[in-house]
Each structure stands twice: as structure tokens, then as C-alpha cells.
């Protein structure tokens, strides 16, 4: 019995390692804020939200499977929350049973029986939910889940469990088989299920099987002790079996809780955004073979949750370009724009809704960020070491088909060095099939890209009106040299460049 509400073919691993780039993503994209809204302060919801968002799905089909389940949850949040609460209650009830700490097999067995009784009660309630509400759900994930509950948890099955719980009291003694080991010791002791439950009177007569017997003398204490040890050894395997069984059933509840926790987080996040007047939509994932990236009304959800309003939305259409260079005035919304693209991509690949009225992109093999760190403003060689070290780690981790968001990378040195390094790094990444979105002030760098591959690069610019005020809109437009650098640049480079298009 698998839950399969997160993946169509496997359990969602809510304890998996976060990808190596996770700490950077969390810091650079402001994911902390999203996670807080998803979890509402609940440790477990937080843990699941982090895995759900950061451990991206790789295929559009997998994304759609989750989107459909999410739609069911958005339609019937109260039922989803009720099932979730049932799983939490199960874990609480189990903890209330006083546990024996692996002292004797009999103690283990007694404990396991009690736990199993609780679990059976909960399974029956879960089945009841499936009976009452199952038909309201239409996604493949939830339909399969409820059908499975009804099929596997029938009355007959509960009857079999009850029979086991009764037999495990061993009112008629234990039957064990054994072999002869070292020095004729008893080995391979196994508790057996009697082929026939004999009627009581046969014990008095002792049929052919029972001719060989002895009684331990009432005063033979060592003998009685040995006998109970023999029974303990016999019960050992079955105590283990029932304990493992309780863990299996419990594991099912735990798994169900974890998978529902993700959708609960999504419900929470959407409530937060809607409450502040922001809309979300389900994005359209494209296969990796159809490179695309387009958005309408894309905004930064983290900023939206913090400020509660006045967040500028942008549109974007990057056809098959491998490189997007975003330039423009400071405080013009470039970083926010870059973040919103990264978040939308991550959320899409988590099977979630995105902060846009429309969003479509091909799936990436991984989203990476290389942001200039706020505290790294001093331009020392140490800072360059630090940022290049981070870049080197990214190069270790990123694969073809990945996306790298660079925010003022290579800025902790002078422009010429920074541009040269940036040119080498980004050029190489593009060539191996990594898409790069670059926010930069390095005019030299953007000019080199424009010269070398005018068709492969999309240039965007943060809008700055004539009076110097910012609209925070990002529009298509080439980089402008900064005022103080332009003269110098012209002076040095004009002769060696093709005639600028602006002069035509």
C-alpha cells in the first residue's frame, strides 16, 4: 500500500538531503519567507515544504500529476486537513502506549499488540473517510489513493487481523520447531502455527504425536527458568514480526502525513497570497527539448508576502535564448525580477502554482543562484576568492539543462577582470547547455556578448524615466554604458568595433 500522492510511482522522501545548491537558493531567492508561510511555524510542515519545493521534479508529466492533486486539495481543503489530522492523531495515540524497551520478546509482543489495536482503529476511520468523500476527488493521485483504501481495507481483512491478535495471546501454549546445533543445543527455534487446533480432550489421552513428554518438577526453578527462556526464544521471531508490522502500518500513516503536509503547505501559501490580493496560476511545464520561458504578470511572491502590496509585475518572453542579460539603473527592480523568475521555475518544478497570471517554461535539470552577497561590498581580492569559490562549487554541481541566475557576479574586482572572468565562465556554461540569466553592471561584459552572439542573447533593461525615476518595469533593451564610463569607452574602443546600429 503506497500513498503516491506526490509521485505516481514512488514514495515522497521527506527526509532526503536537500540538493547542494539549496542554501544558496534559500538565501538568494528569499525562500525562507515562502517556507514560513507554508509551514505556519510547524517544524514538520517546514521540513516537508523545503523538500517539496527544493527537490525538483524532472518531467512535465510528474509536474502535472502533482498539479492535478493540488487542484483537488484546493477544491476540498477541509477533507485534506481532516485526513492529515487523523494521521497526526494516530502518532499521538501510539505515543501514549507505554513502551517496553526491548527487554524480553514477550514484552515486545505485548506492546506490539497494543499498538496494533490502535492502528487498526485508525485504519477503520481512514476507510470511513474514503467511503464518504472519495468520490469528490478527481485527480489520478487521490482517486487511486481512495480506491486503494477501499480495496485493501475490507471487513475480511480486519477479521484476519483480529484473529492474529487473539492467537498471539498463546492461551494454548507455544509450538516451536528446532534443530540440533553445537553440542546438541537447540538452534533455529521457530514458532509454528499448529496444523490443527486439537480439541482439549486429546491432550489428556496424548495422541501418537504426544507420546514423548516430561513435566518439569515444580521445585526445579532453573528448569522453569529454562522453559520460559525456550518460550521466549520461540516467541522472539513472531514478536519481531508483529513489531515490524506495526512499523509498517505506522510507516504508512507517517508517509501519508508527509505527503499531505506538502499540499497543506500549498494551501497555506495560497491563502497568504490571496489574502493580500495576489493571484496565482498553474504553470505550463514544457519538456526540456522545447526551450522556452515566458510569463505574464510575474511577481516576486516573497516580496508580496512581506510588503502586502505595491509589487510590480513583469512580462517576459525568452524564446530559445541561452543567455538573458539584465541591465539598468540601480534600485530598478532587476534583482526582484531575477528572483521572481527563479522562484516561478522552482515552484513549477515542485508541481505548485506560480506567482503569475501565466507562466510557461521548459523543465530544468536544476536551478542555481550566484548572487552578489549584500555584505560583500568591499572590493578586495578576498571577496573575489569567495565568489569564485562559490562559482566553482556551482560548476561542480550544475549539469546541462540547468539554469543559473547570476546577480552582479564577478563584480568584486575591477570591470576588466570581472568582464574577462565572466565572459569565460558564462560562455562556457552556455556552450554546455546551461541557461544563464545575468543581472550585471558590467557594460564591457554585456557588450562582448552583444558583439559575439547577437541572436543568442536577450537584453533586458530596468526602466528609468527621463526624470530619473524608476518604474520597476523590466523591458527589452540593450545595456547602456554608465555615464562616466561611456566617454572613456568610446574613446578606446570605437575604432575597433563595427559601426553601432544606433548611428544608422
Amino acid at each position, binding site marked *: *500500500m503506497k500513498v503516491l500522492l506526490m509521485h505516481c510511482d514512488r*514514495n515522497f522522501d521527506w527526509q532526503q538531503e536537500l540538493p547542494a545548491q539549496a542554501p544558496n537558493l534559500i538565501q538568494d531567492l528569499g525562500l525562507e519567507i515562502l517556507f514560513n508561510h507554508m509551514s505556519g511555524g510547524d517544524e514538520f510542515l517546514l521540513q516537508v515544504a523545503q523538500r517539496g519545493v527544493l527537490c525538483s521534479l524532472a518531467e512535465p508529466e510528474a509536474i502535472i500529476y502533482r498539479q492535478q492533486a493540488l487542484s483537488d486539495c484546493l477544491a476540498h481543503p477541509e477533507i485534506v486537513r481532516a485526513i492529515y489530522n487523523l494521521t497526526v492523531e494516530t502518532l499521538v495515540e501510539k505515543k501514549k502506549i507505554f513502551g517496553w524497551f526491548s*527487554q524480553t*520478546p514477550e514484552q515486545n509482543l505485548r506492546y506490539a499488540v497494543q499498538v496494533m489495536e490502535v492502528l487498526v482503529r485508525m485504519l477503520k476511520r481512514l476507510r470511513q473517510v474514503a467511503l464518504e468523500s472519495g468520490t469528490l476527488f478527481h485527480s489520478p493521485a487521490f482517486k487511486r489513493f481512495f480506491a486503494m483504501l477501499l480495496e*485493501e481495507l475490507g471487513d475480511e481483512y480486519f477479521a*484476519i487481523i483480529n484473529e*492474529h491478535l487473539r492467537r*498471539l495471546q498463546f492461551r*494454548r*501454549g*507455544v*509450538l*516451536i*520447531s*528446532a*534443530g*540440533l*546445533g*553445537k*553440542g*546438541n543445543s*537447540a*538452534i533455529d*527455534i*521457530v*514458532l*509454528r*502455527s499448529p496444523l490443527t487446533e486439537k480439541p482439549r480432550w486429546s491432550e489428556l489421552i*496424548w495422541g501418537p*504425536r*504426544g507420546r*514423548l*513428554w*516430561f*513435566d*518439569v518438577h515444580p521445585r526445579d526453578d*532453573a*528448569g*522453569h527458568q529454562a*522453559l520460559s*527462556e*525456550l*518460550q*521466549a*526464544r*520461540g516467541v522472539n*521471531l*513472531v*514478536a*519481531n*514480526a508483529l*513489531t*515490524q*508490522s*506495526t*512499523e*509498517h*502500518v505506522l*510507516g*504508512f500513516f507517517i508517509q501519508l502525513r508527509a505527503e499531505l503536509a506538502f499540499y497543506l503547505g500549498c494551501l497555506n501559501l495560497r491563502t497568504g497570497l490571496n489574502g493580500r490580493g495576489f493571484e496565482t496560476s498553474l504553470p505550463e511545464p514544457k519538456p526540456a527539448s522545447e526551450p522556452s520561458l515566458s510569463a505574464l504578470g510575474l511577481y516576486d511572491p516573497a516580496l508580496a508576502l512581506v510588503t502586502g502590496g505595491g509589487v510590480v509585475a513583469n512580462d517576459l518572453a525568452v524564446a530559445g535564448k541561452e543567455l538573458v542579460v539584465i541591465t539598468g539603473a540601480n534600485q530598478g527592480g532587476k534583482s526582484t525580477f531575477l528572483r521572481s523568475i527563479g522562484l516561478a521555475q522552482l515552484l513549477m518544478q515542485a508541481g505548485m502554482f506560480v506567482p503569475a497570471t501565466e507562466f510557461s517554461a521548459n523543465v530544468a535539470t536544476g536551478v542555481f543562484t550566484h548572487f552578489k552577497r549584500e555584505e560583500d561590498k568591499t572590493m578586495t581580492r578576498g571577496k573575489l576568492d569567495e565568489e569564485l569559490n562559490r562559482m566553482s562549487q556551482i560548476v561542480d554541481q550544475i549539469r546541462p539543462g540547468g539554469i543559473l541566475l547570476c546577480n552582479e557576479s564577478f563584480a568584486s574586482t575591477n570591470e576588466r577582470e570581472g568582464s574577462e572572468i565572466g565572459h569565460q565562465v558564462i560562455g562556457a556554461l552556455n556552450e554546455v547547455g546551461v541557461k544563464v540569466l545575468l543581472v550585471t553592471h558590467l557594460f564591457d561584459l554585456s557588450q562582448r556578448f552583444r558583439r559575439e552572439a547577437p541572436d543568442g542573447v536577450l537584453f533586458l533593461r530596468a526602466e528609468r524615466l527621463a526624470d530619473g525615476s524608476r518604474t520597476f518595469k523590466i523591458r527589452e533593451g540593450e545595456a547602456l554604458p554608465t555615464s562616466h564610463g561611456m566617454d572613456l569607452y568610446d574613446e578606446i574602443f570605437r575604432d575597433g568595433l563595427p559601426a553601432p546600429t544606433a548611428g544608422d
Partner: protein
Amino acid sequence: MTHEPARFSILFDPIDAGLELDDREEPAFFADLNLDQVFDAVTGSRREYNLAAFFRSALPTAASVVYRQDVFRDIESGLAEHVAAFAEQMRRARSHLKAAGQRQARYSAAAWVLDAGEIYCAAVIALERALSDFRPSSLGFQRCSAYLAAYVKSQAFQQLANETMRIKRGLGQSGYCVRVRGSRVVVSDYRREPDYSVEVLATFNKFQQRDADSHLVKFTTDFNNHIQERIVELVARLYPELFRSLLSYCETHRAFLDPVVARFDREVEFYLAYLAYIEPLKSAGLSFCYPDVSTSSKEVDAEETFDIALASKLTRENRHVVCNDFRLSQGERIFVVSGPNQGGKTTFARSFGQLHYLASLGCPVPGRRAQLLLCDRIFAHFEKHEVIEDLQGKLQEELLRVREILRDATDSSIVIMNESLASTTAEDSLFLGREVIGRLMELGALGVYVTFIDELSRLGASVVSMVSTVVPDNPAERTFKIERMLADGRAYALAIAKRHGLTHGSIKARIGR
């Protein structure tokens, strides 16, 4: 007809050389060279083999040394595991025989004998097979291999092995059921009743999300007690014929151990014990080698050697071991070791003696490479650092011992003197030292003379001066390096250069890279 296989000894060639060793006493120099500690540790966990005598008996000929070195090499190059496994099995077999002797119940006692027999047969067969696959290059293991091959084919062994296997298999197949209810125990045959734990697991298996942890309670001992003995008495009635033959097996085969195999089992422990002792040292990066030994050549040398007792202690404490080189060529005979105290002089003297003694046992010795004298005797004279009440008396006592040594030593002996004859004035010490070293030079014996008197290092061409060194910047810190150099205080300058990698050799090596 099979021939009686030839007896052999893995330690001694010829075989009789190993007789009458057992009550040999510890040589006098053991304590001075700390070899008593070493061999106590070597044999410590193997008391049952009574190995001490082997380590007290130096071999007289180079051939007998090579005989052991070759055996060591075979063990080190692949037989170790097999021989250790054999030894382990033999220990188990013996402990099972012991258990059999302690049992009252007849079936139980017999079963222990049977188990011992099974282990013994398997051990012998496994070793025989391992040896024939391995094709040993040592004479010792070749003889062992030949003996075992013949022994395994012998009628006595075959009968033992077959009988053991037949009964063992029978018992292995003798399943039975026990029903326990209250104080009543009923025994019956096993009719393939289903495993109840499997039924339980099957019921809940569909919930499984991941592999479950084990919750089995560990029982550390086998279930074997007087209740089990009573149960077995009843099981015997389920399988009467089998249990009759078990009893008769016990009668027939109680003394199955072959004396030659038993001797091998004991003697091979000599090798295992020594190798086990040096294993941590090797892991710590220290080298051991098989020295070339000669009873005649006095040209001895060793590279990267060390005091094995000290190294063993330092390695246990995770501390660094300093290695030293020495060489006596042509007419050189005696090392005079001087220099700062606590600088490793005594350690050097010890390791020189240890090296020669270990070589005479046929053991691998500390060092990357060594050529050593197979001496006739080793004499050690170490100053005893006890409270000195009577300087005059002490010096007299020392001189008496030195005289004894000089009387008994031959030109094939090794004499090690550590701060000897120092219980007097420096002038006296110089005089006495000059006399004693002079006599040793006349004798032609090899020797180490540790002293605080520099002058003794300049007594002639057969004397080699070795000096303990310190770190120049911090004279309190010892390098424990003993260098061949003139004892004139210039040691510091050389050490400074070395520390910075600026000695002649270091510079060549660095530039040549």
C-alpha cells in the same frame, strides 16, 4: 598402500633442533635490550602455545635463519589468512573437546566431540587445499604441504572425516517440535508446520514503506541446559539409529588429533604471534625487512631502523617514531655513541642489539633494509640506575662483569655497553673506556659503546662516532636522531641546515625534482 608421511617442523630444519628447548631460561641481555617486554607482548595472548622457549633460542646457522625467513615470507605473501584460520579452527576444536569433557549427559558430550572432529577435519582439509593452491616457496611449507596431502589421503583421516560428516548431516536434518504449556514439555517430530511469524508479516506486509529494523532480542548463548538435555533424550527416541552411532563415534574417535599436525599448530604460532606484534607498527608506516645474515661478514648496516619495544609503545600512543641508519664497513667494528642526554643514545644501542637478536630468530627486523652478523652471543652491559650507595663498590662490580664479558666474547660476538664504567671520575671513565674499547678492537667483536666522553669516539679506524642530536633552535627538544659525525659539537650547524632542507643531500634532491 599409502606411505607414512614424513614428519616435519615448520620452525626447525633439521627437525631435531627443536627438541629440549622447553625449559630454556631467558638470556641475560633480554632485560637490558627490553626484549623481555617485546616477547611478553608477542606471546601474551597465546599462552596456551607456550611459545616463550622459541623466542629464547637463537638459531646457529644462516641456513636455519633462511628456513624461517622463507616461511615468514610465505605467510606474509598470502598464507597468513589461511594459517590464522587454521589456528582459529584448531582452538575451537580444542575448546569443543574440553566442553565434551565437562558434560554429564552422554548425547551432549558426544555431540561436542563430533563438532570438534568436524572442525578439525575441515581445518586440515582447508589448509591442505590452501597450501597446494598457493605453491609455497619455503621449504617449511613445502614439507607441510606434502605431509598434509598424504595425511588427508590416509585411511584414518578419511574414515574420521566420512563418519563425522554422515552423523553431522544426520543431526542437522533431525528437526523436532516442542510444545510448551505450563510445566509440560511435549516432543514430537517436525511436520513442516508453517512459520507463524511469516504469517503475521504477510498479513501486514502491504503497508511496508521501507525496510524494517530488527526487533529481535539477542540471545548471547545457545540454548543448552538440563531441559535441553532432557528434550534431546526424547529426540533421540525419534531418531534411535542416528543417536546410537553418535555414541559409538565418540568412543572410537575421541583422540583424533594427529601429533604432527598438533606440532605444526603450535609452532606456526611463532610466526603469527610475531607478525601480529609488528602489524600495528607497519600500519603506522614503519618498515620491516628480512636481513641478509652471515656468520662471518662483519660489514653490517641497516636503514631506517628503530627500537621495536619503544616503537610499539609510541605507536600505541599515536606518537611519532624516529628511525636511524647505521653502517659498519670494512674494518669498522664499534659504534661509540655520544652527545646530549635523552637524545636516543640508549635507544640506538638497544636497537642495534635487538636487530641482531631478532635476525638470529629468523624474524623480520625493524628497518627498510639490513645486513647483519649472525653472532654467536650477545652481551649487554647497561648501567643500572639504582640508588648508588657505594661508588667504589659499584665500579668494582661493573668491572667484574665487564671482565666476564671480555673473557666470554669471541670475534663473532656482539657487545653492547651503555654508560658503563661511568660511576667514577671523568678521567677514570676515559681511561677505563679506552682500555675496554681497545680490547674489543683487538678481539674483533662488534659493539656499541654509549658514553658521555667525546674522546672515546676517536680511538681509531675501527671506531665509528655516532652523535645524538637536538633541535638547534630549541636545545630542549630532542630529535632522537643518531647521526654519524664527529663528536665535536658541530652537530647543531648540520641540524639547522637539515631542518630547512638545506643539507647537501636535501638540496640535491629538491633541485633534481
